[in-house]
């Protein structure tokens, strides 16, 4: 194996990843005070991005058979109900994850 070439691949991925994160700062960050339109998008966008990330986590879900989507559907319902009720991050995420693990390992094998 050519480890030097592999190191080059890793370095390329590292640089490109950083560049995507740097992009908005390089584009809008140099002026003093952010443009009002950018400030507005920056303030409002997180709600939309989080929603897209939820979809991103569920992207491989199959609705064709019950065992394929039931574990995630049930676990998400558990997370949502617990969170609306208790509003405690750790309880909601911990119980939801354990519930999901039990379902994929035991119930819907």
């Amino acid at each position, binding site marked *: 194996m050519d480890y030097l070439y592999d190191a080059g691949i890793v370095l390329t991925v590292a640089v490109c990843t950083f560049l995507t994160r740097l992009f908005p700062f390089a584009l809008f960050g140099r002026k003093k005070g952010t443009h009002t339109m950018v400030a507005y998008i920056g303030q409002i966008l997180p709600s939309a991005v989080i929603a897209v990330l939820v979809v991103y986590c569920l992207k491989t879900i199959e609705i064709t058979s019950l065992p394929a989507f039931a574990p995630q559907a049930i676990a998400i319902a558990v997370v949502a109900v617990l969170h609306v009720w208790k509003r405690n991050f*750790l309880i909601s995420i911990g119980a939801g994850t354990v519930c999901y693990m039990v379902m994929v390992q035991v119930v819907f094998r």
Partner: protein
Amino acid sequence: MKKLISFIFMRTLPVLFAFLFLGIAFGLLLQQAGYNAVWAFMISTFVYAGSMQFVLIPFLGTQASILTIILMTLSINCRHIFYGLSFIDKFKSLGKKYPYMIFSLTDETYSLLCSTKIPKELDEKKVFFGIALFTHIYWISGSVMGALLGELITFDTTGIEFAMTALFVVIFIEQWMSAKSHIPAAAGLICGTVSLLIFGPGRFILPALLAAVVIILACKNTIQGKEVRL
């Protein structure tokens, strides 16, 4: 100081679980591909991008062209372009830590920074930097552990990656409950789902985010009107 660290630790705890296990999975796969813990450490320290690192593994040892690697990285990570928009002024105020904050802006760090309400007695800049640093350390620790002793883990961890989904769902609910206008969140859900159906799981994020930005801009008056009235 003690209060600051315990606040950051409690806020980042869900990511600790998720990153330890996803990191272990990454380290294990990397080790099986013939790359030891030093590689796991270097990749997780300097790349620090969850899904991209998993995609990277099969390319190691293949002499894939650098152009392919560049295009692949940009297409998978292009969603990050949108994350910085919310932190341009805030990160700048962090001075020397500004480049590190940009470097460490992963999906999870972004979500935590967006959703953390900082208590008055704590310094916002220190909390921001702490969240970024802690989550980075969790990720590095997980991947090194996976590469070193992944095979020794005997209990079945199948499904533990759901912690990430749960984290995003919880943050979504928090934002829904505190938001004055539900248009942005609804736009995200609808654009995400429609884009997924049209473009498929591999390529849906960028069109979804672009569409969400367009909707947010088109509904500017409605969204801002609510913020003023309430």
